[in-house]
């Protein structure tokens, strides 16, 4: 078997995707999401944990099962279902812990939060961060943070209940169904980390590689879900005596959206296999742009319905926009990838 043959998910991966799709659909939903937007609480961690989803993509020696490609197809289904349970946050936390060498099996028994911020960690592992948005920050048993200092980077695991952790912003404006609350850590004396690892700045992208693949897979799923919704709508909505999907002005935009989703999916699968920093930056950037573009198109094709609370498209749009810049905005990622490639080429 050559490497490229791994780009086709095997039977195990496909079975996993089917199971995840059915299970996530039962947890989803636009109804759950709308309730969350109105301030309801979104649960679902138990189902995710019992399904064994948090062990996927974790190396076997750390008690995990499955490969990166399995993690990708599973997170794609989560993104497609607009899952509100903190599965992506946990995947980001665990992948990053594994890459930094601070993972413990027990961390996977509870929901995790994940964030990236500027800050500093001292030699005793005390961490100071002025402001960090933590995905899955509500109800997380531990925060995994990538703290960027002027010359180094740290990966820390901290207890949200620990002394010195303050919630500074509870409201999430863009996508309240997957909250991104902000915290301040150790304003005065620092917060003691349960685990920490100092890395050279040049190691940042190596440590974030797996997290980028996870975010990108979630975004591809959201884009694919929006594409399905848009196609369904244009087949059913009639104007000028025919389904609006018959018009080339509509057809070509959807064909481009389909092409964009397939291209993004290819980049994500490729990045999952290589975990090369450049590949992961590109996959993250492309998936982010694709999700924003396809969810916007979904809104446009819905006509006036597109800007109502009742229509699903704003749920997809909110999810896409919030997730798209979670690990940096696309232009910054393209820039970083180009710099890596130029270093290799010159």
């Amino acid at each position: 078997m050559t490497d490229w043959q791994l780009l086709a998910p095997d039977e195990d991966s496909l079975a996993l995707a089917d199971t995840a799709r059915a299970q996530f659909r039962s947890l989803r939903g636009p109804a759950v999401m709308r309730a969350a937007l109105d301030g309801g609480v979104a649960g679902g961690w138990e189902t995710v944990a019992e399904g064994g989803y948090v062990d996927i993509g974790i190396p076997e020696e750390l008690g995990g099962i499955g490969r990166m490609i399995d993690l990708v197809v599973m997170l794609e289904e989560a993104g497609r279902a607009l899952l509100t349970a903190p599965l992506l946050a946990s995947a980001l936390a665990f992948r990053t812990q594994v890459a930094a060498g601070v993972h413990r099996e027990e961390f996977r028994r509870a929901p995790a939060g994940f964030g990236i911020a500027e800050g500093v960690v001292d030699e005793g592992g005390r961490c100071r961060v002025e402001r960090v948005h933590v995905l899955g920050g509500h109800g997380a048993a531990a925060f995994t943070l990538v703290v960027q200092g002027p010359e180094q980077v740290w990966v820390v695991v901290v207890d949200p209940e620990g002394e010195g952790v303050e919630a500074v912003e509870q409201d999430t404006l863009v996508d309240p169904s997957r909250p991104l609350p902000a915290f301040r850590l150790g304003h005065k004396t620092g917060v003691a980390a349960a685990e920490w690892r100092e890395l050279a700045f040049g190691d940042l992208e190596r440590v974030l590689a797996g997290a980028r693949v996870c975010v990108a897979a979630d975004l591809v799923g959201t884009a694919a879900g929006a594409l399905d919704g848009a196609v369904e709508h244009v087949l059913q909505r009639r104007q000028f005596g025919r389904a609006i999907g018959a018009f080339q002005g509509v057809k070509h935009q959807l064909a481009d959206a389909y092409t964009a989703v397939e291209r993004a999916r290819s980049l994500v699968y490729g990045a999952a296999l290589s975990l090369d920093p450049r590949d992961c930056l590109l996959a993250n950037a492309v998936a982010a742009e694709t999700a924003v573009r396809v969810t916007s198109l979904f809104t446009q094709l819905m006509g006036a319905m597109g800007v109502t609370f009742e229509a699903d498209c704003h749920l997809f749009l909110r999810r896409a926009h919030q997730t798209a810049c979670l690990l940096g905005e696309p232009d910054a990622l393209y820039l970083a990838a180009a710099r890596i490639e130029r270093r290799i080429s010159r």
Partner: protein
Amino acid sequence: MTDVTSEFEAFLDGFLPADYAENYRHYRRDVKLRTEYQAAAFDAGWLVPEWGPGEGGRGLSVPDALAVKLAGARRRVPRLMNIQGAGVAAPAIRSYGTAAQRARLLRPATRGDEWWALGMSEPGAGSDLAALRTTATLADGVFTVSGQKVWTTQADEARWCALYVRTDPEARPHRGISCLILDLRSPGVEVRPIRTAGPAVESFCEVFLDEVKVPEEALLGPLHGGWGVAMSSLEHERDMIWINTWLETTRALEPTLTAPELSEHQLVRLGRSLADAEGVRLTGLRTAAQRWAGLPSPASSILKLLGSESVQRAALLSLESAGARAFDDPALFDERLESLAATIYGGTSEIQRNIIAERTLGLPKGTP
């Protein structure tokens, strides 16, 4: 690297000049080298590795053949001089040809000894190929062909033309078409080259056909079954063309990758083009992997769409990043112009979008 690709690499080491990689830009337009490469690769069984010995191949499995083609792309093997001969006509002859047609035509078409033209477009039938009006009437074992073809690439240098003609005017448009193998030296054939907008754009021609006699034995595929021959041969091309467009995209990016200074904006654009190149490569590979595994795969039209648009963006970026230096380097503009042809030939991007919308997304047929 597998054994088979290292054997292929050894063949390339023996064939290509020592400074080939370094001076690729020059060798890219070296007609003699390109002609000799095709013949040598055919003789050694590397040209179409999945075909049999004597056909330009060595009976490799699909994955091994793909590994060889990728290795070839990485080494930037010389481009074929007459791509539609080995890439489109030969597979059609191999699938649809009679024993006599295969014996006479397959080897020279694949090896590049005899060039081929594709007689598809007409003044009134471009994207709407089924509207073609060149007619052929069969009487006493001979077709009499009259009509006009246009945009016929390399017809002025080709020996043969896969000519699509209307043989049943009563049938629905795409049911009344046949494919004839036309000897371009036949009486009544007049070929007029069309001047292209720039030297890098491949030469194309008008072909006038005035009561040209074509023997019945030159029918390729079933009578009135030409549409199927056209679709399957174009599909064959679309399946593999991504390797070329990936190669062309990475090649077009080279000046930008090694340019001494770039603005942040140019770096962002470079990053996007790197994603383009990877998008083409990985979608091509994923399509091949899914087909090989017997799974549904992305529509092949997306490879045509992605590949051609990637080449265009990369050529635009190299031209624009060069700034005023482009005035002294004519190749940059020529390649930009050449890249604009990529979304037109082999089925325009608009047609690819219709195909994706109707066949893959299931949107209604027809084009209001």
